C-alpha cells in the first residue's frame, strides 16, 4: 500500500498514478481524480458558457474516466487519452443541450400551448414542472431518486432495496439530479 507521501511524490505523474490505479490502489486513484479535476476544468472553461455546466461536465468526465480506465495503456501518455474523453463528454453535453432546447421551443402566439404551459398558480406550476421532469427519467432512476431525495433513504438503504451497489446508486442519483436540473433550467 502506498502512503500519502508516495501520492505526493507522484504529483503530476498521471501515467504512473493511472497504472497504479488500474492495480486497485484506491488512495492513488483518489489522488489522480483530484489532480485531474482542475485540468479538466481548465480545458472546459473556454468552451462552455455557464459555470454550472462546467461542473456538470467535469463530473461526467470523472465518471467516464472511471468507466474507461481499462482502455488506458500505461505505455502511452495520459493527457491525450484524457483530452479525448473531455472532448467527447463536452460535445455530448452540448449536443443534448441544444437538442432539448430546440424541442422545447414554441411560439407564444399559440394559445393552446401557452395555456397549458404557463400556469396561473406559481406553486402548482412548479410542482407540475417537477413532476413532468421526473417523468422523463427512466423508471428505475425515478424510483431511486424519489427514495433518496424525497423520502430520505440513505444510499446504502436504497442499494439494498434495489439490489444495486452503493456507488451505482450514488452515480445514478447524481445523474438524475443533473438531468432534472438541466430540464428545469430551460
Amino acid at each position: 500500500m502506498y502512503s500519502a507521501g508516495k501520492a505526493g511524490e507522484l504529483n503530476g505523474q498521471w501515467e504512473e498514478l493511472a497504472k497504479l490505479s488500474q492495480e486497485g490502489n484506491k488512495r492513488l486513484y483518489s489522488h489522480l481524480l483530484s489532480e485531474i479535476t482542475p485540468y479538466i476544468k481548465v480545458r472546459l472553461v473556454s468552451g462552455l458558457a455557464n459555470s454550472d455546466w462546467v461542473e456538470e461536465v467535469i463530473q461526467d468526465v470523472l465518471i467516464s474516466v472511471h468507466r474507461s480506465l481499462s482502455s488506458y495503456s500505461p505505455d502511452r501518455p495520459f493527457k491525450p487519452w484524457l483530452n479525448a474523453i473531455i472532448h467527447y463528454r463536452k460535445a455530448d453535453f452540448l449536443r443534448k443541450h441544444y437538442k432539448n432546447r430546440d424541442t422545447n421551443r414554441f411560439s407564444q402566439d399559440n394559445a393552446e400551448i401557452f395555456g397549458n404551459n404557463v400556469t396561473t398558480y406559481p406553486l402548482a406550476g412548479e410542482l407540475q414542472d417537477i413532476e413532468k421532469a421526473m417523468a422523463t427519467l427512466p423508471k428505475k432512476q425515478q424510483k431511486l431518486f424519489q427514495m433518496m431525495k424525497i423520502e430520505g433513504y440513505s444510499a446504502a438503504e436504497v442499494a439494498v432495496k434495489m439490489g444495486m451497489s452503493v456507488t451505482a446508486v450514488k452515480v445514478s442519483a447524481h445523474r438524475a439530479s443533473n438531468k432534472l436540473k438541466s430540464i428545469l433550467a430551460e
Partner: protein
Amino acid sequence: MRETKNETKQLIEALTEDLKPIKCLKHPLKRVLCWTLFTGIYVFLIIFYLGLRPDFIIKISSEPSYIFELFLAFSMSMSGAISSHWLCVPDMRGQNWMPVVSTTLFTVLFGWLFLQFSVEFNFLEQMHFSHCMIDGTLFGLIPAASIVFLSMRGKTTRPALMVFMNIIAACGIGYMGLRLTCGCDNTSHIVIHHILPYILMGGIIAALGQKLYRW
C-alpha cells in the same frame, strides 16, 4: 456553485470506493489478429461448404480486374477492422489517420462498382430472389456480430465512426467471400444481390450502433 463542487468531491469518493483491480484492454493489434483469425477460419469454412466458383482458376490467372477487386475488398475489410479496434481506445493511441485509409478504400471500391453499374444498368431484370442473398448473410453476419462484440469491449469517443468502420470490416469480408463463390459477374447482380443486403445490414448496425457504443 459550492454545492456542485461538493458534489464533485463526493463523486470522487464514490468512484474511489468503487475501484477494483482492472484488467487492461489488450493491444488493438492483438485484438485485430484474433478477429482476423476467427473470421478467416469462418469464411474459409463457408467457402468450403459453398464451393469456389467454377471458373475461379481462369479468373485468377487471366483477369487482373478480378484480382484487383478481391484485393480491394480484403484491404478495405482489414483496414476497417484495424480502425475499429484502434477506435476502442478513446484517443485511438494517437493514430487518428487510420479511418481515412478505410474510407478511401471504401470509396474506391464503390466508385469502381458504380462506374461498372452505370454502364451495364439493368436493374429491373435483376430484381428477383437469389441464393447470393442468403450466402451474403452467411458471409457477413458472424464477422459483423463478432466485430461489434469486440468493439463494445472498448470505449470509443466516436460512435458514428466506429459503426462505419464495423460496417466496412464486415461488408468487405462478406463481399470478398461472395466474389469467390458466386460465378455471376454481372454488375447489376453484384450490386443488387451482393451489395444491397450489406447496405441493409449496415443500416441495422447504424441504427443500433449509437446505442451500443454509448457509455
